[in-house]
């Protein structure tokens, strides 16, 4: 192996020292970090500009909507007053209670042997569910007048129960009468009765009330015999 003598070792060493100069390396690192920082700055600036744009758009929208919202709030009360009034009127009209169908159903079940002397009715106005009370007083005649009166009560219960909720039809009184009547030429005994009917109406019918078609309660056609 041949021996080689490097006569440039000092020059080469100086080159290496210059190449690995810490200040130079530091400045290069500094430059690289500086570029990164500038990049970061521009990214941040871009992001900030986007947010500024959004904010600006929002401010414009806010400025546009504010007077509209104030005007809308003022008008809303006015419109709501009209709507509430119309709704109340409509509700009042729709939820009226019709007596005609009730009278129709009651008069339809009155048999010929019964005569109604008095009938009263009342409904609790403005309340839902509406409670209706009807009181029927009359005279029932026949061989078994109590049975006639009881049949009437049961029929009322059945007929009205089909149309109304929570119906109750109960005797308030059922007394023998000293009066006797003549039905179809035959003498019959009588009882005086009073039936109290009450029921509830959940939803008030809005359909027109039909007119009663059945026999009406009438004054007792009693041929009194003492």
């Amino acid at each position, binding site marked *: 192996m041949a021996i080689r003598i490097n006569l440039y070792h000092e020059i080469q060493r100086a080159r290496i020292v210059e190449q690995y*100069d*810490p*200040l130079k*390396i*530091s400045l290069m*690192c*500094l430059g690289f*970090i*500086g570029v990164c*920082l500038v990049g*970061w*700055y521009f990214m*941040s*600036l871009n*992001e*900030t500009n986007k*947010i*500024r744009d*959004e*904010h600006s758009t*929002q*401010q414009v929208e806010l400025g546009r*909507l*504010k007077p509209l919202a104030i005007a*809308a*709030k003022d*008008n*809303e009360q006015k*419109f709501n007053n*009209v*709507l509430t*009034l*119309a*709704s*109340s*009127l*409509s509700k*009042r*009209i729709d939820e*009226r209670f019709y*007596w*005609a169908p009730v009278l129709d159903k009651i008069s339809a079940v009155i048999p010929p042997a019964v005569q*109604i*002397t*008095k*009938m*009263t*009715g*009342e*409904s609790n*106005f403005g309340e839902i569910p509406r409670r209706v009370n009807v009181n029927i007083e009359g005279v029932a005649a026949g061989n078994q007048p109590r049975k006639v009166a009881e049949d009437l009560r049961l029929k009322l219960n059945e007929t009205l129960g089909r149309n109304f909720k929570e119906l109750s039809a109960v005797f308030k009184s059922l007394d023998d009468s000293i009066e006797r009547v003549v039905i179809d030429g035959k003498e019959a005994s009588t009882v005086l009765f009073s039936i109290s009917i009450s029921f509830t109406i959940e939803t008030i019918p809005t359909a027109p*009330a039909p*007119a*009663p078609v059945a*026999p*009406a*309660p*009438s*004054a*007792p056609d009693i041929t009194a015999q003492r």
Partner: protein
Amino acid sequence: MKLNKDQQQKIILGAMLLVGVIYAANEFLLSPLALERSRLTEEMTANEPKLREMRAQIARTKSSEEKTPQATNLIAQVDSMIPDGSPVAWFPPKVSDFFRANGVEKAVAKFATETTEKELTGYRRLTWSIDIPSADFLRFALTLSKIENSEPLFEFTGFEIKANREQLDSQRILLSVQNIIKKQ
């Protein structure tokens, strides 16, 4: 590699410069931007509910406004059903005429009470009693049915039907009716 004194000084100088540059970039460039972003974002977040409320308010009012013509029409219809003038002057003849037109000769209406209703602003509710001294039940019931159907502002709240012992085919009838009228 062993660093000489000169190199060590250069490295320290470089590190100081690096720290200075990072500090300056953060303090004068990045930090103000971050603060501004944070302020704007907070402001936008705070404005968001206001905007939502404003949009909702406008939508609510628009919806109410769209329904208003129908409501105004209904109110006008109701108003057109109420005659002008004092109800004591027009209600009894109206009832009397209605019953007479349907075959019930005499019906006397008398004013009973007046109620102001909170729900019906601008309206009053009057209660009347109607006395029919003599009427055939069927005719009466038919008339009642007609009046209930033709007068939406009337509501009959009670009745009493009594047989006339003197006149077997007729009844004495008392009615309680409520009607809505406009406030004078």
